[in-house]
């Protein structure tokens, strides 16, 4: 082989190794650094109390609860909308133009930066019924609509046409076919979509700052939705940037990192499980 080609091959090899090495090292460093800095700050007291000015301690229980509330509320709002839209697209829509418009809109929604969601959410929801977790959940529901819709659509496409035809042949109406044949078979897509959405909600901050606010009070589910509250991510931002509490911030960051890892693992596991099930 000519020297020139040899040089080319080796240059490409080295570039590939270098780039992959940088990517791997970056990930390793980020994960390692956050965990090393953060884990020593995570104590039972840190997890189970609320911030107290009297004893000058910081606990993140309210932020944990707020995160749980907002994930639940967002999913409850977005699942019917996303699944409904997916069912419409795969089962009802016959007009190609309408399908094109809806899919383009979904794509546009997933491209809009979260700060714009935050701003519009503030105008649409918070200015009407106050800065509260519910306003944040509604904003995040719009944001996650494409995720749920697309994952449901994917799994609806795997439902064999013969199932539908069989049900129709037995005299079932369209709604009945959807209810008894189509919907039960799209559960995998909905679950995958929910996991991905939960991950996105967990990491979201810009869309929540001006819609859900940043209070740290301890509330029940219903009262929590009606009052202002910081999720873990927003709380981490406030502690790091506004208050210079880096220990607390790294503690929360380590928790967020572990949750992100957990969500990734479960998304992969779920996808594997369903692929196996569908192959059978």
């Amino acid at each position, binding site marked *: 082989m000519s020297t020139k080609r040899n040089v080319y091959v080796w240059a490409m090899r080295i570039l590939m190794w270098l780039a*992959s090495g940088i990517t791997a090292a*970056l990930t390793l460093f980020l994960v390692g650094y956050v965990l090393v800095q953060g884990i020593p700050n995570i104590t039972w007291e840190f997890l189970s109390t609320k911030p107290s000015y009297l004893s000058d301690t910081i606990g993140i229980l309210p932020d944990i609860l707020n995160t749980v509330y907002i994930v639940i509320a967002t999913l409850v709002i977005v699942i019917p909308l996303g699944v409904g839209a997916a069912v419409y697209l795969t089962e009802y829509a016959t007009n190609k133009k309408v399908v094109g418009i809806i899919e383009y809109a979904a794509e546009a929604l997933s491209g809009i930066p979260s700060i714009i969601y935050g701003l519009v959410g503030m105008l649409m929801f918070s200015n009407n019924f106050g800065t509260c977790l519910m306003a944040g959940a509604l904003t995040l529901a719009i944001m996650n609509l494409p995720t749920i819709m697309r994952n449901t659509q994917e799994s609806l496409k795997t439902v064999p046409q013969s199932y539908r035809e069989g049900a129709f042949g037995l005299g079932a109406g369209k709604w009945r076919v959807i209810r008894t044949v189509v919907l039960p078979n799209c559960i995998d897509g909905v679950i995958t979509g929910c996991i991905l959405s939960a991950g996105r909600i967990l990491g979201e901050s810009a869309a929540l700052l001006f819609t859900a606010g940043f209070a740290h009070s301890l509330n029940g589910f219903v009262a929590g939705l009606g009052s202002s509250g910081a999720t873990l991510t927003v709380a981490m931002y406030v502690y790091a940037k506004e208050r210079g509490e880096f220990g607390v911030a790294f503690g929360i960051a380590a928790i967020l990192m572990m949750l992100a890892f957990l969500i990734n693992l479960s998304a992969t596991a779920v996808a594997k499980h369903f692929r196996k099930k569908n192959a059978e």
Partner: protein
Amino acid sequence: MKKKRNLLENIIHGVFLILGLITVGCVLMITIYLVISGIPAIREIGLVEFLFGDTWAPTAAQPQYGILPFILTSIAGTGGAILIGVPIGFFTAVYLAKKAPKRVKEVVGQAVSLLAGIPSVVYGLVGMTVLVPGIRRIFRIPDGSGLLASIIVLSVMILPSIIKMSVTALEAVPKEYEDASLALGATPEETWFRVSVPAAKSGIAAAVVLGIGRAIGEAMAVMMVAGNVANMPNSPFQTVMFLTTAVSYGMGYSDGLYRQALFSIALVLFLFVMLINAVLDFFLKGEQK
């Protein structure tokens, strides 16, 4: 009975149609809200003065509302992130899609997913505590936060999108192409870079555009490392404000025309993003062909 069933079917069809159109409704609502709240300030300030004015001083005695520094910063920051992130992402993607052993591919693939799942504020936190002091020490400047720190944070943040999308595009290249090239005596590396990459070029282009979209829309991580002063981006160490951070930074304590101008900035950002989306759509359509 038939009639009753037909009525029910029609109602349900209608319900699903409405659910399907909600996506479109959301996009319309967002657009309308942004236009309605963004236009008044532009009218009052004047479009040219707003877009090309080089001074942003909304709280001065003689307020000035020029957002050229933000526009240029967003372009410089995104461009810089692409310059660093794309080569790293591209070569990693080729390695993962073509060369990596199965186990390595699984582990690095998992790592890339994790990188994508890390919240942007965590990137900001590490940037604040590692990168900013690091830049300060290496270059011996009083403040390490600024354009360079933002570019580095952004380039790491766009890596996962670029890698994932490029890998998908590269894996979709028909095996026959590569086999033909190998049979003609090309080495694997030559085959990947001269046959597979050109065959996957619209997918890779889409990955780059997606990265641009991510970078231009990022707010929180950048806000933690950019320094947040409305300077022109005329040096890598300049403290700067992006379109996104100008909005989130000012939103907390602004009123009157200042606040309205923030909505106008969001409108400008929105137009940028819509343009990027249209380009992305173009490349994705090319991919399908």
